[in-house]
């Protein structure tokens, strides 16, 4: 699943460490999310969306598997 997390984080002038501390996850999790290597749980997706005051769909892009 693709996402715009890196772009949104940079728009908010946040470092990965800062976002990780706010969301209470590890910095590596933020890095993996941004690289698309890891898909978040629905709870973490909501937490991220709430933090940026956006909807989940605005951050995470669902693509049908071919």
């Amino acid at each position: 699943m693709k996402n715009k997390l890196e772009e949104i984080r940079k728009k908010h002038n946040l470092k990965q460490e800062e976002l990780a501390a706010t969301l209470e996850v590890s910095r590596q999790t933020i890095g993996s999310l941004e690289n698309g290597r890891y898909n978040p749980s629905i709870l973490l997706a909501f937490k991220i969306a709430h933090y940026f005051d956006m909807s989940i769909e605005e951050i995470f892009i669902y693509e049908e598997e071919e």
Partner: protein
Amino acid sequence: MTSKKTLYIITLVLGLVLVGVSLFVSGEELKILSGVLIGIGAGLFGMSIAQLYMVRWEEKNPELTKQNQIELKDERNTLIRSKAKAQAGDITQWFIVGLAFITIIIEAPLWVTLVTIGVYLLYNILSLYLISRYQKEM
């Protein structure tokens, strides 16, 4: 934090008491009991010292402790740990099967082969039980 400290002080004292008691347990027939008491006592003592040191370290480094807690509870880390443990269990299972064959080849006593097969069966029964439990829970 204080309750943790109290618990480890109790286990530390208990460890010392067990080692102390073992010194008074003498006689050929009680040799095994004395060994068991020393083993458990020393284990408890060592574990308690290590845990008390950790509690002290956590009190002195609240920021690092919080970060460690975050790392421990982090959902990606939790998933990685579970996946790694599950795979390690699967791999170990085949080593146990191999071990059972080796015990047959080297003509080890029958009970050794049976215990090895028992461990393999236990792994599979536990797996089935946990799968069924999680299917009900999730």
